[in-house]
């Protein structure tokens, strides 16, 4: 356990080594939020308007929710794993008496902690300048469901990342592209981080809700907003849990195969 505390600390130090980079990235984040905010603010310029069951307060909460949930779920250091394999740096880790997954998971958590810290600051800043009508959840059960779904989402995303990152074991030159495809397109689109999924046709929604993707962003936010509760909440959590376990097993299977096929090239 102490090992991973040290990993946590050094990761934190590492994040600060690229201060400027980090700040630029945060600025980009804020700009993105402002853009999306004004988009929806225009759509809902008429205060009485309700679209797809979202009024102005809820859609804006959704937008701010995305900011927090994304920085918790989709910001992951483990996105570097593909490069780690491709460059051969993974050898350094494999030679150590330490689990490679736990190493990256710890680095993820440390990076998420840092992100959360900043996201809260940005949140306060944007809140003050934009003054959005904000929906505060007070129901403890909903809050508990929210945190549980976030934890599951983090774990599901970690496994998805590790699975796509294993491609360079077999095809070193494909690594980056496939990675981009999965994270940028599939996840941004299907997780609900661009738009709420429940504005899509019902059949598509039904299919999506069997997949793990909505449980990354959309589901936690809906739970927070109180739009999902009771048996639907339990059902959703069960599907999340199912995916968390299944993806963990599949990921381990793939990695065992991958390490065997690994050619340790590039050094």
């Amino acid at each position, binding site marked *: 356990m*102490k*090992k991973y*505390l*040290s*990993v946590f600390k*050094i990761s934190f*130090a*590492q994040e600060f*080594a*690229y201060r400027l980079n980090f700040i630029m990235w945060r600025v980009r984040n804020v700009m993105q939020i402002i853009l999306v905010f004004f988009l929806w603010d225009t759509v809902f310029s008429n205060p009485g308007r309700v679209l797809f069951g979202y009024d102005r307060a809820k859609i804006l909460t959704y937008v701010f929710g995305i900011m927090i949930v994304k920085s918790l779920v989709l910001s992951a250091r483990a996105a570097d794993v593909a490069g780690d394999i491709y460059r*051969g*740096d993974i*050898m*350094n880790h*494999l*030679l*150590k*008496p*330490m689990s490679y997954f736990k190493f990256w998971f710890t680095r993820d958590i440390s990076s998420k902690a840092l992100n959360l810290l900043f996201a809260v600051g940005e949140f306060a800043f944007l809140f003050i300048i934009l003054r959005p009508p904000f929906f505060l959840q007070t129901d403890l059960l909903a809050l508990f469901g929210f945190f549980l779904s976030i934890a599951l989402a983090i774990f599901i995303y970690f496994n998805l990342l590790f699975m796509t990152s294993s491609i360079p074991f077999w095809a070193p030159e494909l690594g980056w592209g496939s990675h981009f495809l999965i994270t940028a397109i599939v996840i941004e689109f299907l997780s609900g981080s661009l738009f709420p999924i429940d504005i899509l046709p019902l059949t598509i929604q039904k299919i999506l809700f069997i997949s793990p993707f909505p449980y990354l962003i959309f589901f936690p936010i809906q739970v927070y907003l109180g739009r999902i509760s009771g048996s639907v909440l339990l059902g959703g959590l069960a599907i999340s849990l199912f995916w968390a376990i299944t993806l963990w097993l599949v990921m381990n299977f793939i990695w065992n195969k991958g*390490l*065997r096929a*690994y*050619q*340790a090239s590039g*050094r």
Partner: protein
Amino acid sequence: MDKAILVDHLVKNFEVTEKTPGLMGAFSTLLSPKKKVVRALKDISFSVSKGELVGFIGPNGAGKTTTLKVLSGLLYPTAGITQVLGFDPWERRPEYLKRISLVMGQKNQLWWDLPAIETFELNRAIYEIPKKVYKESLDELVTLLEVEKLLNIQVRRLSLGQRMRLELVAALLHQPEILFLDEPTIGLDLVAQEKIRNFIYDYNRKHSATILLTSHNMDDVIDLARRVIVIDDGRIIFDGILDELIARFAKEKIIKLTLTKEIDTKELEKIGKVKSIQFPEVILRVPRSAAAVAASELLQSFPVGDLTIEEEDIEDVIRVVFRGEAKKLSRK
């Protein structure tokens, strides 16, 4: 158990996809990849006793690095058995990894953006080194490798040689019993090479560590290893004492003369190949079996002030071995 490393009929094949150039080529590679098998290790066997320091040499692409990677558990062997300290390296058990270290000349484990001391602290935690042992170990390594002043400087700002020495510290903090060194002196200046060599020598003595060392720098091998394993094209072509390698593969001896008078060098050609003349010094190469006869003839018929018979340079011998002439010899 006195055998630290055991390799038995080890085979390692790499599967590579052949690329066709151009865009269409890239597509056809993607759709119907042409696989080619590279046979990096073709059935090699050897063993190393505890505390032994063995030089592992061979030309580029011979399979040295591949062997070290299999032994340290990075590569899954295609066939054959490997056992190190009684462990199967591939399982990469923590108890095993805590007792070995692989140092590669071009590999960085140090965190690039942070001072080296941060990596050392991390390794202390990962290897679960007790505080006291860590302190002693660090002090010793830092003093021997003369890196006191470098510990708190961002690694990216260091020179290659400085970094290499710090890499060694990072790799040895946990005091491994088995050390795989892959070209540890690559790219270093002569002083730094000497430093690292001395250090390896001391480490081997002090900790009775078993060391497998590859290098293209023959000084490393000559200074450090008594026993060498020569590998070429995935096969072991020699395994024995360094002196034996020379006795077996050196076909010539070197005769060095000091002349007292200038003479027609054509005459010397009749006795052996003239390697160099810088009056009054002459160096001749003669077949091993004819060395004595040649020497006595030189003394009789030439104005010789001084004469010595020497073995060929190890480097020259090894060059012969690498050039493949050894394969013919070893097949006899």
